């Protein structure tokens, strides 16, 4: 993966994900960080949004932004809601760090009609090359730290994500593939050329 960090690279997926969100709908953001995305949704689409993050400092930033946030375990929060309580659950740049990804994603599908998952494709050729040539852990924008300082990460590929969906009878209703720059669309051989993928899942 490219290591130059442009502001666009951090927001382009946010733009695409927000396009799929209806005005005045309700959204749960898993791994909401500092609430930048939800703040944008609340301002531009008047959504009822709530974020969840385990980091107290980040939840503090959400408070400053006026974004409702829940500090703690996302699985525990999700259990507190009835079926289809939300219109959409967003899981952007979070899925690779989930302790039990299938449980969380299936729970997300219980909570909402649609689930948006944005994830980094570790099958991208540069990741493959990096691993092949150095044999080392892959550094990414999302997880830019050396292994000994990084959170545990599942290096998933697009093909692996598709097979997860197939196995659980999850319908993928939308797919957006972005290239290694996360900006220009990736047109073919996605598992090799796509750097960042955004899927909409329904069940």
């Amino acid at each position: 993966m490219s290591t130059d960090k442009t502001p666009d690279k951090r927001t382009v997926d946010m733009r695409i994900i927000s396009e799929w969100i209806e005005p005045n709908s309700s959204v749960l953001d898993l791994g909401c960080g500092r609430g930048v995305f939800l703040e944008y949704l609340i301002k531009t689409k008047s959504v009822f949004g709530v974020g969840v993050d385990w980091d107290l400092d980040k939840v503090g930033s959400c408070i400053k932004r006026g974004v409702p946030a829940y500090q703690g375990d996302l699985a525990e929060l999700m259990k507190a809601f009835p079926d289809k309580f939300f219109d959409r659950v967003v899981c952007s740049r979070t899925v690779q760090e989930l302790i039990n990804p299938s449980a969380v994603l299936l729970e997300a599908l219980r909570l909402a009609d649609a689930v948006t998952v944005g994830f980094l494709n570790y099958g991208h050729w540069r990741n493959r090359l990096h691993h092949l040539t150095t044999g080392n852990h892959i550094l990414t924008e999302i997880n830019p730290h050396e292994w000994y300082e990084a959170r545990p990460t599942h290096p998933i590929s697009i093909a692996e994500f598709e097979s997860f969906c197939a196995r659980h009878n999850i319908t993928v209703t939308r797919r957006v593939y972005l290239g290694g720059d996360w900006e220009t669309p990736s047109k073919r051989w996605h598992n090799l050329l796509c750097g960042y993928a955004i899927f909409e899942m329904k069940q």
Partner: protein
Amino acid sequence: MNDADENPLLTRKGEIGLVRYQDFDYDDPFTFEDGQTIPGFRLRYETYGRLNKKRDNTVLICHALSGDHHCAGVYSIRDRKPGWWNNMIGPGKPIDTERFFVVCSNCLGGCQGSTGPASINRETGKPYNLDFPFVTIGDMVRAQKLLMDHLEIPELHAVVGGSMGGMQVLQWAIEYPSYVRRIIPLATTSRHGAQSIAFNEVGRQAIIQDPEWRGGNYDPEAGPKVGLAIARMMAHITYLSDKGMERKFGRRRRDGGDINFSFDVDFEVERYLRYQGQSFINRFDANTYLYFTRALDYFDLPATYGSLEAAFRDVSAIALVIGFTSDWLFPPEQNREIVHALLRQRKHATYAEVPMDFGHDSFLVDAPNLYRLIMAFLWEQ
């Protein structure tokens, strides 16, 4: 050098300094939830900062079981013991008195100047004692609302409080939804659970079984001091944590020496608890302790309103609920439940869990990460 120069609570930047209390006398009949009526009541309260022109900058502080209206500042130039939340309230502090008009009132049923069991019943000319109506969290809040009306405050920017104060905060948002814009309940619960009722019952029995209690009709100068001190000692343990006590006292001996093979004070923690018990009997009325612990026990929002969601149905305040990792009296789960129910009602609610080792009383402790949360929430537009 005079005393004022020496007292940092007067001279240090960020201190409110000298404060004084005021009394609000409500002269109309007031009917409690238990159906009983008193001809009027007094609430003792303090205010800090100034009400702005739009009269929309009031922050109401609700105190806990053993707290009172004196939550910041000092009473005299020699006073070294500031109000109970002096670290939180003051110019430039998280609850900033340069920006907010802060009000804190002693609860109805209290013993620090407000009408309570020790007050004189106008009809009999004697103290109410156990003839005082049972006071609930709802009664406390309705009485505070009358004080707000008296102060001509048209809306509250925020209501903030921990423990029993947190219960009042929730009650405020439920009872007066259009009046309250923000709430910060800390270390609290929506339903007083079995363990908490059990602890309260032991405290009450310590008082009631003290022969000096005399069916509640004790001489104000005497009274069940032993029972009240024991109740306080036991309750105080529930406000701390294993880790916090270990760090503060460990097995330290009172005199740093060897064990004495006696039942007198050997350990520092014993000395501390006895001190807590002794200082409490000098400032707190035993009957108020009975009444307030009962108010806690009877607090059950899910039962009162059908469900916690139903209780929150009309709430319009945005909420910041804060739990503390080491609080085992009102543990994080009970604070989280409040947020879950608010969110299920699609209310604007945030939950923050502050990692602190001081147990239930963590909300009273000097803690920069707690300050940041409260400041951000109160200041956010």
